């Protein structure tokens, strides 16, 4: 471990009460190779400048709240080591494509709204009585949706998506991946309901397959895959419905 070394971290500052627009402030802090960017921000908050605002909670890549732009890339700051940048400077900015609330804190209401639109929960036409026991699944049924269930709602994929930057109406990568996650769940019966939101011009058909969402996703959810698969499935369904109605599911 290196000692006595320092690193420069530059962070976006913005106070809606005091600032006309966002600006950058640099801090020189002690460097340790086992520190992550979030540790550095917490060091600044505790010992240098208590006014710096940012979100975090679990410090272990689970809660999804510490996403920021680190040297231009949407990143979980609790999973990004200073040693990967040292001795260079680190620039920490808020996630792109979301309105800025203060410093590194963004307004996530748009994402929360879109998440609700895809109904990310199990929908049943009729619930089984408790006496009939749990809804059981085979390992193969679990495998169908497991990858998409890893999403931690960190919104890095939205910050990386040029389509969302251009067209804020776009439902976006994570909401579509989570919609697909429930559509693939053998216990769920809400697929037709969700497709009314997913298979629209603001849903899957807005995606031009840049693919950056899957590159930045810290949980290998691969939302780009969820979108392309839904495109293929709904296209096949459309053909079945219009050309081969007797084959309709």
């Amino acid at each position, binding site marked *: 471990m290196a000692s006595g070394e320092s690193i420069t971290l530059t962070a976006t500052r913005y106070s809606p009460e005091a600032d006309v627009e966002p600006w950058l402030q640099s801090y020189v802090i002690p460097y340790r190779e086992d520190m992550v960017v979030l540790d550095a921000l917490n060091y600044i908050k505790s010992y240098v400048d208590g006014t710096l605002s940012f979100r975090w909670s679990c410090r272990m890549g689970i809660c999804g709240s510490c996403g920021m732009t680190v040297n231009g890339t949407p990143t979980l700051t609790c999973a990004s080591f200073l040693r990967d940048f040292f001795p260079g400077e680190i620039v920490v900015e808020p996630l792109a*494509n979301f309105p800025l609330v203060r410093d590194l804190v963004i307004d996530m209401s748009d994402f929360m709204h879109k998440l609700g639109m895809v109904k990310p929960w199990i929908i049943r036409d009729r619930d089984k009585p408790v006496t009939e026991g749990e809804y059981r699944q085979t390992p193969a049924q679990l495998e169908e949706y497991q990858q998409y269930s890893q999403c931690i709602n960190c919104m890095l994929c939205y910050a990386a998506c040029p389509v969302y930057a251009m067209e804020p109406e776009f439902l976006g990568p994570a909401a579509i991946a989570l919609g697909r996650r429930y559509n693939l769940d053998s216990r769920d019966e809400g697929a037709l309901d969700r497709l009314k939101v997913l298979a629209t011009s603001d849903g899957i058909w807005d995606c031009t397959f840049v693919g950056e969402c899957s590159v930045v996703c810290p949980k290998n959810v691969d939302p780009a895959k969820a979108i392309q698969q839904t495109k293929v499935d709904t296209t096949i369904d459309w053909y079945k419905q219009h050309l081969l109605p007797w084959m309709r599911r």
Partner: protein
Amino acid sequence: MSQIQANSAWVRNIAVSPNRYHRADEPGLVPTWWRANRRFALYMLRELASVFLAVWSLRLLRQLNLLRQGEEAYDTFVAKQRRLPWLLFHISAFSFALLHSVTFLIAAGKGPTLHFMGRKVSERTITAGAFAGWAIASLAVLLALLFGGRGEDT
């Protein structure tokens, strides 16, 4: 209506660092966004391919149409295609077609959900299958061109 549109706060520009912002109610993509990384640049080249392929297809339609106007008109058109500007265009169109095909087939693995003997077929296998299909189809076309034509043309 989306929160981004409704809100008049500052929004950080995608792919521009450090610290460039736009107002939330203004369009959010700076013209140079695609220069931020190699993947964005490749995506733009993939999209640009469509322009070359559209021009090439129009050119092909014209060529087919000239068949109706007789041998002389057709041969004049073909002769023009051998001039340097057209040759450069054909090389560019071919390169873009190749780029588009390769990037499309790499992405093809993400599309279909296939099952074989009760197990999901992996993305890698689907992609490999797509490349194999492409190679076989290209070979078939090549053989048809080499041995299926009259031979004395071109």
